[in-house]
């Protein structure tokens, strides 16, 4: 790899590493002189649980080719349960990436303990090569992909998805307010359908931000049946997040309210 010329594309990989395990593992990797490609740029966080979906999706929006999250092994979290939440959040991030059309395997979660220096080098090498094969992220070049990734980011910031991904672990392990533990598979289904809905709604808002659009137009761009689009628009209007522009002829158009939301 020493003969890389400056003009050639190189994957831009960002790593979020938890202070106690994976950052320490990366340190040990250095101390032990295990070599890996130079592409990764690490950002240290105290715990992988700190990484909200927004952080990751926003970085993909900014054009990152790959994001690697590193945490302690399950059961070893310095903060007891942090990485259980990370696991749930990463699942949500990947679901949102799938919705957006950006390859979900540009995001990877790995558990690396403070003693796994060699493992860290292997993971980084393998992941960098994987991202290299996927090629450069098209987010910056493809407007519609950008809109979809932005919608995924917005969806991750909705109350519903944040509350669900935060409560998921507790609902499965400790139970709900009635002390009923929920079936993880069942809960996954609920979260998946909420993810799909919130993504679609966010995309409608994203698309209608600069230009009022009709249901038919939105359906066309989003490749969704118009009745589904209309149902989303009803919800968004109830939440005061989208407004109907003066109908021209018989076709109403909708425009996103900049500072909307339930008041």
């Amino acid at each position: 790899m020493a003969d890389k010329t400056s003009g050639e594309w190189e994957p831009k990989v960002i790593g979020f590493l938890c202070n106690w395990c994976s950052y320490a593992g990366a340190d040990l990797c250095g101390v032990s002189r295990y070599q890996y490609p130079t592409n990764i740029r690490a950002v240290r966080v105290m715990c992988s649980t700190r990484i909200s979906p927004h952080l990751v999706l926003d970085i993909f929006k900014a054009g990152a080719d790959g994001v690697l999250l590193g945490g302690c092994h399950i059961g070893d979290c310095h903060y007891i349960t942090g990485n259980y939440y990370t696991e749930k959040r990463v699942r949500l991030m990947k679901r949102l990436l799938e919705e957006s059309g950006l390859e979900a395997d540009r995001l990877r979660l790995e558990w690396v303990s403070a003693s796994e220096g060699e493992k860290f080098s292997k993971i980084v090498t393998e992941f960098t090569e994987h991202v290299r094969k996927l090629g450069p992220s098209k987010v910056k070049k493809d407007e519609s992909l950008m809109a979809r990734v932005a919608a995924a980011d917005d969806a991750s910031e909705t109350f519903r998805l944040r509350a669900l991904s935060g409560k998921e672990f507790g609902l499965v392990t400790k139970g709900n307010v009635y002390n009923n533990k929920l079936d993880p598979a069942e809960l996954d289904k609920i979260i998946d359908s909420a993810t799909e809905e919130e993504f679609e709604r966010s995309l409608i808002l994203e698309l209608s931000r600069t230009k009022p659009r009709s249901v038919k137009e939105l359906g066309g761009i989003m490749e969704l049946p118009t009745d589904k689009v209309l149902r989303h628009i009803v919800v968004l209007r109830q939440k005061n997040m989208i407004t109907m522009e003066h109908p021209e002829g018989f076709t109403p158009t909708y425009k996103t309210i900049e500072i909307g939301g339930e008041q």
Partner: protein
Amino acid sequence: MIHMTDKKANENDKPRIGVFVCSCGSNIGGFVDVPSVADYAKTLPDVVYATQNMYTCAEDGLSNIREAIRKHNLNRVIVASCTPRTHAPLFQATCEGAGLNKYLFTFVNIREHCSWVHMKEKDLASKKAKDLIRMGVARARLLIPQEEAKVEVEPVGLVIGGGVSGMSAAASMADMGFQVHLVEKDGELGGFVRLLNNLYVTEKGAAETIAPLIAKVKGHKNIVLHLNSTVKSVEGFIGNYTVGIAPKGGEEKKSKVGTIVVATGALEFVPEGLYGYNQYPNVVTLTEFEILCKRKTLPKLKSVAFVQCVGSRGQKMSYCSRICCNVAIKNAINIVDNYEGMLGVMEKEGTLIDKIPRQKKATDEILERRRRRRGRGSEGEGDAEEVKLGPSDKIEVTVFNRDVMSYGVEHELTYNKAREKRVKFVRYTVDHLPKVFMEDNQLKITYFHETLKLERTMPVDMVVLSTPLVAQPDAGDLSKMLKVPLGQEGFFLEAHVKLRPVDFATDGIYVAGTCKGPADISESVIQGSAAASRAAIPMAKGYVQAEALSSVVDETKCTGCGTCIEVCPYGALRKNEKGFAEVIIAACKGCGCCGATCPEGAISMTNYTDAQLLAEAKASLDEEV
């Protein structure tokens, strides 16, 4: 209660960043073009000073930082060298020494994460080092000075549990001069050990052994004893707990304590449905056997069988109870050595085994087998040996085991001693568990002889089941009250299995003894004393300084939904009187789970804000900040 340190810095000042790029001898300099990296750093926004050092952590490097802060009026310092995990405290202290808030310091790792892992690509490694510094600058520009909260610590300890570990902890703390509340739910001190006959390795009775400790605890002027009492409520955080202690049926009384030691002990597993327990009269557990011995109410016995690992190691509980091999060996020796001494007055007093069937045919059979066994050795010496062995002629002891785990020096010697005394150790496997049954009014045990590959049956007068120690059934309540975790088996879970064995992850709460897993008495004493000395650290110091690494709630966004309270592993969030989430700075560890969870995005972390993390990460993507 809470004092702020007096370091002040104006967060509205325009950033003036100084960058110090370290060569670390040739560790960095050999693989990264340090001069060009330092030159590059000068071109970054808000960087007013950049230099390179041979060793930034050496005194001349540190004085370089101090001088530059003064001379160039720096209000942000970046050191690009090794890892923050080892060197951040040093550079932070240097900044503080020069009057700069330590939270305005940024560490960029260009050694472990760059020069050492890209040793054959100097150009690319240099480019990466520049990128990492650019990321550091992006972060540094957004840093905000933080003040550390100082929290006073009430110099009073609470010990929950008056067993050996609890008493050891309380006595140690009291000896150090701290007042201690010792809460015991029974009417007597001594816990599990109270039930036991004698303690292995020593010949002394258990009660006799722990009597001095009990006397010390009872008589200590610094110990407030709460017998027949339980802890009803716990509120607060390290240094400032308010605990409610209530006697049985009595009213709860609040006390202020600074630290808490949990030493609630364990129970013996009841082997319901295993090996005829509760079905045949003479099948007892190890502890029941000890009680019988202690009361000297053993019936006349000719043959005793111990069955090890009853209910443990995968049968009901997954773990090894660690102590039962040694306890069984001790009792086997006791039986052989001290048989006469333990024989009881059962006829007079009556015990749970007064329904014991008399042994009839067994005697001859046993004697016959014993004769055969002796004959196998050296003919003619049988008589002499018989005299020497004495007691074992009268009684036969067999220990059915999966493996004998007599770890360490003393226990292995005791095990050898038992073998010398002709205690039989017969191995069984999980595929062929021994069976206990009653036939013709005679208790019998059938086992699979591994060497002979044959099933054998022997008559026994008593079967002693070695069952594991199990967690207290109400450990969960205490775990919830204190917000400390339980492991899979219901025992309390320490902060780190190797390095912090008596700490909980929550500051100010410690754990000792069998409530965190089976332990023998000396181990319990060690843990009790260790927990006491750990708990004494903040109490002796008088305060704890909370690192300014915590959650911050934006009340204008908070809706009081309480999700953050649910996810916090430390109980560091509560609702304030306005109904909004409030962070207890002293309890918060800054993991950020609440911040990533808050549905309203109302929680941020000091100096790990979304803006800071995104600026740092995104700076790696662009060529410009």
